[in-house]
């Protein structure tokens, strides 16, 4: 039952809400100029899209700059824009929260390579990103360079493909898991 033909356009229309007066957007624009690709504030959620090569710098700025002070990573997620026919295909979405300002912010970035998406890990900036990055890798196949332990988290080792990609059929079946030997690579350990 892989998505039958949808009606309606396959695009996200331009968001009407302007973001000119948001201090965080202004700060990002001042610092990164045209590396800030898009901004919008749909339904009050202030959002900026940063070019992948400045992603880490932007995250660091958002956390450390006293005007931003987003000290809490609420969530990190990915999504696949394949059926919207947009490129680059993948987008990684961060939801940040600032305790001192009681404000939320959404930062997005797009790993450029569609076939082998790669992005910098931000685990050293936000330790909370550890498992979510593993999940994004698991579900979308985006590799995070610098991640301390990048392996599948919800799916098992040996799962073929990345299930939340839009070209992964909803009802696809997986081959049987082959029996694995437990590696005896921990000498001195009592089992």
């Amino acid at each position, binding site marked *: 039952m892989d998505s039958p033909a949808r009606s309606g356009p396959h695009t996200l229309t331009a968001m009407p809400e302007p973001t000119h007066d948001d201090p965080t957007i202004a700060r990002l624009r001042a610092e990164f100029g045209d590396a800030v690709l898009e901004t919008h504030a749909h339904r009050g*959620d202030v959002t900026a899209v940063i070019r992948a090569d400045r992603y880490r710098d932007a995250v660091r700025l958002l956390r450390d700059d006293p005007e931003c002070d987003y000290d809490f990573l609420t*969530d990190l997620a990915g999504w696949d824009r394949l059926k919207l026919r947009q490129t680059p295909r993948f987008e990684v979405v961060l939801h940040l929260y600032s305790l001192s300002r009681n404000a*939320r912010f959404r930062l997005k970035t797009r790993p450029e390579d569609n076939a082998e998406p790669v992005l910098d890990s931000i685990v050293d900036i936000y330790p909370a990103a550890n*498992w979510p990055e593993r999940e994004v890798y698991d579900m979308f196949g985006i590799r995070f360079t610098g991640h301390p332990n990048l392996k599948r988290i*919800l799916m098992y080792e040996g799962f073929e493909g990345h299930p939340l990609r839009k070209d992964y059929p*909803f009802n696809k079946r997986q081959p049987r898991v082959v029996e694995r030997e437990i590696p005896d690579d*921990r000498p001195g350990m*009592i089992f």
Partner: protein
Amino acid sequence: MTVMDIPHSDIADWAVDTTLRSDTTLSTRAMLLNMGPSHPAMHGVIRIVLALDGERVEDADIEIGYLHRAFEKESETVGWGQVFPYTDRLNYVSPIINNVCYAMGVEKLLDIHPTERCEYIRVISSEVSRITDHLTCVAASAMELGAMTPFIYLMKAREYLYELIEELTGARLTISYVRIGGVKADFPPGWLERLDKALDLVLREMEDVDVLLTRNRIFIDRLKDVGVISKEDAWSLGFTGPLLRSTGMPRDLRKDEPYSIYDRLDFDVPVGTVGDNYDRYLVRMEEMRQSVRMIRQASRQIPGGPVQVDMSGRPLTGAQMVDAAKMGMTADLLLRTVRPDPTLDGADKKSAQAIRTADRRVSLPPKEDTYGNIEGLMNHFMLIMEGEGIKTPPGEIYIANEAPNGELGFYMVSDGSGRAYRVRCRPPCFYLMQGMDRMIIGDMIADVIATFGTVNMIAGELDR
């Protein structure tokens, strides 16, 4: 906020301690112990691989995913309104709160607001769910430490509330009670009075448990200074809810970013001091009392009026819906071919009557009626298939509410069709389990059970 080291969690890299202790001539070796995925003292399927030095936990690796059921992928394949049954199964101890959060997300996409009465119904039922969740957590943690009596008392207390939830929603766990722009049904007659009486009984059971546990020497010895996490660690690892509050951080979405009608309720946010298991127990006990306070205030404030709104946010009654259908607004009906889907198994008349209210304003007719007679078809059509289900405008939103375990969030992307393009669920447990190895390393192996109990992992929302 300090940046901490990354949790060292790759088993293969574990340094094996074969060095001689300086104070003794005996050498020690780490022992590898699997707890889970199926273990009598672990409520929920999760695997914790422990490296032990005697009884002390040297290192821990937490493996999740045993209850993964593709919630996010499933959400992309059905209409917006059809996701509710899946959200029931996220945190299955307090499903109403998941329902409410998801509905709030779709309403934010549509920019509609439920009616006053509906907001109150949602808050009252959410707080009842929060109490049942905390009751379960405290009961299970106490039982795992050998205290069987409080478990029975608290389960009895939970039963008072579950009976009311059953009466309200038609089911105990998989309730699917909330609808986009409303709820399934109004309170049954006399429900709020019965709730008030039930809350008295719950408070009495809690008093008994309070006497049995809070100053109990054994209980305190097992919990105090065990499973400690610092405020900074908890904050930087994405902790929310009672675990974060137990470290002394008064963060509560109902207070900080009040949604629904929480800004009209007077309540306190209990916090702990050191962030150990005992603090978490105390925070949960106090939160239940605060929830009772909230429910009683909301019961006094609740206005009358409709509980459903239409797509443009206007109140809508069932009679109006039926009138619209009678006036012939069914042109699309003739152009549509109905193809029964194999996933509709179980939506037959017999099971529908057993689990749903017969109120046509809010309840889908059984499939025999939908495909068998025009009244059933119209009823179904107007509830679900108008146009192509509920069409949200293109856009993306993030919505969060305070679930019993912390911040439950949904990130939703809509492309303007009748389905979600992407639904991401931010389960509070996911972030709690990510930091659990920090809480158990250095403690004894028996403390793992105590800590695991007060963390209150719910595999349903952890693995989705």
